[in-house]
């Protein structure tokens, strides 16, 4: 058994081992995605054969309801993303630079949503922040009577999505911050840099990769969300997720559902490309 024969054998075995999942991904992800995109563009012609048609897209972009849904989705995505980072960055910074009981408690609490299935989060939030919910009871106990519930307003899904996205965002940010060495910060303090200066000049450059990943992943996750907007948000206009679901299941219009999915693909491909490029670059750096 020579060295080359051995690596050849291991090569075939490797390919055989990954064949099934790769095929599954190809058949059930890439193929249907391609098929439905093509299906929205190429229609069977009345007299047999196929013709190219933008009909379904023209419908989407002239239908005020569809456009309102798209706008609502973009608004929710951007607002949630900004709030997620605004909330999690300080927590991540705190956890990076503190040890002890309080930090451990904060970490446990902040990662807790990871263990709560989406449907239970929805239920909990409805009972908590909904009209006549527990939060309102607690607030009126301390004399605050002007509580306006975000439930079934555009802010409802935002709250739910922040709940949902918090652990992952925090984990990636903490992982990024762990690249910042204590020594480099102490060196900066040594030469007289203030806290803000350290944040801007030392920490931010180190976590741009993490911020990019967090933004891309959350963008993809939020844009296509179904459960949160369905349970917590208003129905008119609604987000793309519930919209697609209703178009497919209730309206029974797979063509229009595919069109909506394709538009979602296109918009999300910006985030997707950013994500993949960022990862590819990271892997290249790891290798060298």
């Amino acid at each position, binding site marked *: *058994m*020579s*060295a080359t024969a*051995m690596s050849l054998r291991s090569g075939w075995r490797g390919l055989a081992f990954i064949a099934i999942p790769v095929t599954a991904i190809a058949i059930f992800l890439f193929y249907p995605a391609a098929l439905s995109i093509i299906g929205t563009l190429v229609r069977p012609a009345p007299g047999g054969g196929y013709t190219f048609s933008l009909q379904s897209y023209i419908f989407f972009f002239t239908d005020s309801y569809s456009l309102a849904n798209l706008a609502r989705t973009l608004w929710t995505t951007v607002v949630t993303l900004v709030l997620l980072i605004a909330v999690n960055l300080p927590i991540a910074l705190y956890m990076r630079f503190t040890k002890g009981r309080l930090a451990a408690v904060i970490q446990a609490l902040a990662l807790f949503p990871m263990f709560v299935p989406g449907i239970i989060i929805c239920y909990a939030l409805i009972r908590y922040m909904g009209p006549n919910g527990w939060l309102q009871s607690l607030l009126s106990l301390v004399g605050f009577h002007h509580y306006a519930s975000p439930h079934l307003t555009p802010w409802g899904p935002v709250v739910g999505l922040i709940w949902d996205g918090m652990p992952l965002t925090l984990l990636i940010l903490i992982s990024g911050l762990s690249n910042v060495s204590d020594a480099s910060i102490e060196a900066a303090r040594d030469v007289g840099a203030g806290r803000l200066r350290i944040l801007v000049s030392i920490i931010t450059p180190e976590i741009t990769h993490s911020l990019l990943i967090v933004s891309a992943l959350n963008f993809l996750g939020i844009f296509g969300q179904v459960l949160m907007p369905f349970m917590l948000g208003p129905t008119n206009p609604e987000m793309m997720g519930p919209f697609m679901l209703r178009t497919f299941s209730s309206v029974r219009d797979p063509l229009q559902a595919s069109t909506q999915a394709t538009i979602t693909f296109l918009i999300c491909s910006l985030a997707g490309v950013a994500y993949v490029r960022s990862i590819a670059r990271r892997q290249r750096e790891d290798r060298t």
Partner: protein
Amino acid sequence: MSTLELENLGKKFGAVVALEPLSLRISDGELICLLGPSGSGKSTLLRIIGGFEMPTGGKVLIDGADVARTPPEKRPTAMVFQSHALWSHMTVEGNIGFGLKLRGLKKAEIAAKVDAALRLVGLADYGKRHPAQLSGGQRQRVAIARCLVLEPKILLMDEPFASLDQHLRDRLREEVRQIQKKLGITTVFVTHGQDEALSIADRIVVMSMGRIEQVGTPAEIYTYPQTPFVAGFIGDMNMLKAVVTSGAARVGDVQLDAPVPDGEALFAVRPEDVTLTPSLNGEGVRVRRIVNYGPVLKIEAEMPDGTLWKVQTLKDVPVTEGACYHPIVSRHIVFREDRAVHRVDPV
């Protein structure tokens, strides 16, 4: 009780030569150290002997039988790894007995052998523990017991003590040497520490850039290095370039005999082979620095042309910083074209 012979053993990784074809004979019961800087090919050579790398060409003969193409599990060799590589999910007993279990021995037999191996390395009562509950030194002992219990023909050790502190390393090294002598097991030991090699080995193989530089006893390697690399790698050495004319060369006011054809040559002088005698006329070398090492003083002296001399004397020899001395060299080696061509020993 076995011999190990390497014949024209070489290894290439693609176009990179990791090991130039080399031959070496290791006799029964001998402890050989492979010594060299990292990247010198010593670990590659050890891994080829153990079967973890396939040589590009050549033979590995154990008791005359070629095992160069035999996978590690079928070789009569056993390896102690740098990271000890104990299986953390098994107890100490489980680790040591694993190889015996694979060979299909009976439980009672395994228990007896494991017990004996544990006693050999001084860990008689530790069998039920897990590796995580042991100290670094104890783990390495278990790793040694795991090898010895299989009664291999050849024991291989890959920098086994590199992760331990100096004190522990010295003690374990001594123990390993005792056990190895007691069992008379042929051993190949890789290290990058010259102290380790000098103190433990029967013979040392100095390697550099995938080549054997020199094979010899510790005393030979230290006293008679055959190449400038060995001279510079083992211990402190003054390496001086000088031009030979009619059988001698001058470095400052020091004359070094060299009965070789005229031309440039490299001279190697050990610091302890230099004695300093007071210079009254201000010629010779000026002492820059004296560092006290207890029994000896290490001295740095400078010639007027800037050449530095490392000198080592016994602590009672009077030397003062800033004063001038004549260096007297009692032993030196002359190198030309990377080989030792002449040697002057003290009379």
